């Protein structure tokens, strides 16, 4: 665990007027992580991402990206960071190629030599290598998304910051992007993905941070969050006999739902052997783990885009 930090914030706070969008946030992303930044819509994810990249200025707190303070060192840091923030954007009247060429030329100290190759290579990388010269305004949502990702990858960044990268993609596209991100990560790129799609994060990430109403409520390795709960889930065609046998063995059956049982036990193989020895068939067997959804729902309040009317007394007080 002595890897360098890729992103670190301390006491990061942002007010828009009197609205506190992000509150005392301490992010800790290490190099080599695939970090999933989770939170409902409106929980402050995008504001945080924008602060990391120097687009929005923090009200207070410190940000360090790739070991340098942001936004002060933006000129040195940002060339090593690829990003996609709240959906892709491009100059609509130009082709995807022309867009990437322009974006490549904008970067400080960008060289003209090899620009064409860089652009073509990146287009290949995101599956747009064969795209024609039609303007971006005629692209489908999925193509735009791929182009946005290409713009982020253009300079072979050490850190990728992606906000909702699979928005608008079909299942095949989502799989492509996931494979691409894992491949990049295997090559040493740190990936920071923000999303409200739990399943996506669960399949991709090694570390997870959960944001709720501007506050970090969970930040942990995914493996730890998803540790076994100490229960075994099993299915049997003969649940009554199974319960009776388990009672005899002194195991507690904590849930019973038709032919499916949840049993407190550490070793699934041992439990299986016990039942089979007693002549009871087992056709399903798994170690129960908390799903990321359980973790997130337990840690967060109601959705961040619901604004229930507070009780009147409270309203008067504020």
């Amino acid at each position, binding site marked *: 665990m002595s890897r360098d930090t890729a992103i670190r914030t301390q006491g990061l706070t942002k007010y*828009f007027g009197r609205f506190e969008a992000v509150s005392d946030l301490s992010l800790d992303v290490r190099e080599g992580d695939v970090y999933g930044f989770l939170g409902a819509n409106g929980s402050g994810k995008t*504001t945080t991402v*924008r602060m990391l*990249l*120097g*687009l*929005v*200025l923090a009200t207070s707190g410190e940000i360090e990206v790739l070991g340098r303070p942001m936004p002060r060192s*933006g*000129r040195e840091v*940002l*060339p090593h*960071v690829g*990003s996609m*923030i*709240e*959906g*892709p*954007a*491009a*100059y*609509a*009247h*130009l082709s995807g190629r*022309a867009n990437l060429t*322009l*974006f490549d*030329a*904008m*970067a*400080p100290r960008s060289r003209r030599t090899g620009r064409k190759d860089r652009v073509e290579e990146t287009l290949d990388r995101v599956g747009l290598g064969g795209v024609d010269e039609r303007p971006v305004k005629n692209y489908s949502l999925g193509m735009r998304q791929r182009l946005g990702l290409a*713009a982020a990858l253009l300079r072979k960044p050490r850190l990728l910051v992606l906000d909702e990268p699979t928005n608008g993609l079909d299942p095949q596209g989502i799989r492509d992007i996931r494979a691409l991100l894992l491949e990049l990560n295997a090559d040493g790129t740190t990936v920071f993905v923000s999303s409200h799609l739990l399943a996506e994060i669960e399949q991709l990430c090694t570390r997870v941070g959960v944001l709720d109403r501007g506050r970090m409520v969970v930040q942990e390795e995914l493996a730890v969050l998803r540790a076994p709960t100490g229960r075994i889930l099993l299915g049997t065609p003969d649940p009554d006999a199974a319960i009776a046998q388990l009672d005899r063995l002194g195991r507690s059956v904590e849930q019973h739902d038709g032919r499916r049982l949840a049993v407190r036990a550490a070793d699934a193989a041992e439990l299986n052997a016990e039942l089979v020895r007693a002549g009871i068939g087992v056709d399903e067997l798994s170690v129960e783990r908390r799903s990321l959804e359980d973790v997130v729902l337990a840690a967060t309040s109601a959705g961040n885009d619901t604004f229930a009317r507070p009780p009147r007394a409270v309203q008067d007080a504020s």
Partner: protein
Amino acid sequence: MIRVELSKLLRSRRTWTTIALIDALPTLVGVLLAVTDLGPRPGEGPAFLSAVLTDGTLFPLAALAIVLPLFLPIAVSVTAGEAIAGEAAAGTLRYVLVRPVGRLRLLVAKLVAAMAFVVLTVLVVAATAYVVGVALLGDQSVQVVGSTSVSGTSLSTPELVGRTFLALGYAMLCMLGVAAIALFLSTVASSSLGAALGTMSIFVGSSLLLTLDASEAIRDYLPTRYWLAFVDLFRDPILWRDLQAGVILQVAYVAVFFAAAWANFATKDVTD
């Protein structure tokens, strides 16, 4: 970044459409004059227009005098008004800034691009007007050498060329003033339309105030006060007073509004 902005400008179909439309008016005027031979009497109508019937080579100046008070400032307002607000609305501003392109560098590049647009427009207008003027106008000319100054004396060709370039430079400085105002509004407004209309209303308002005797006290500070002072370059001798005042005034407008644009944009939260 400046090169990128210029390439965007030149590749945009709208740039060329706008220039063609701006160019259409003086061309139409030239054709009408040629067909009817009915020029405005000296001292009436747009500057130089009365002179072009006798000397077609003066038509570029007449064309600029037609374009400068209204068309060119509108086009500049739209172009510069789009600078930041347009990128923000298209969502590309955030991607430009994280390239990273410094915020000051972006503002400078946008202003340079707006000026490039002005130069391009002025050159196209002047060139077309020259062709139109030589081809269609001035057939009544009995002159042998040189052209007539506004004061009635003769100007040699080198003199005329030199003064024409001075006039072009002066007109561009005036447009730089417009661009600076539009750029500032572009960092404030969330839509490029708002920035462009805001700028237009400033110079329309200024032109209106200039006609009012009651605005005597502030008229020398209004942005459009000396816009047409380039006509003085074609007097003999050149009447420098208004030109000098105009240069100082425009430089002040550019400095103030560019500084305001930077002050506002440097610390702005980019949330679109």
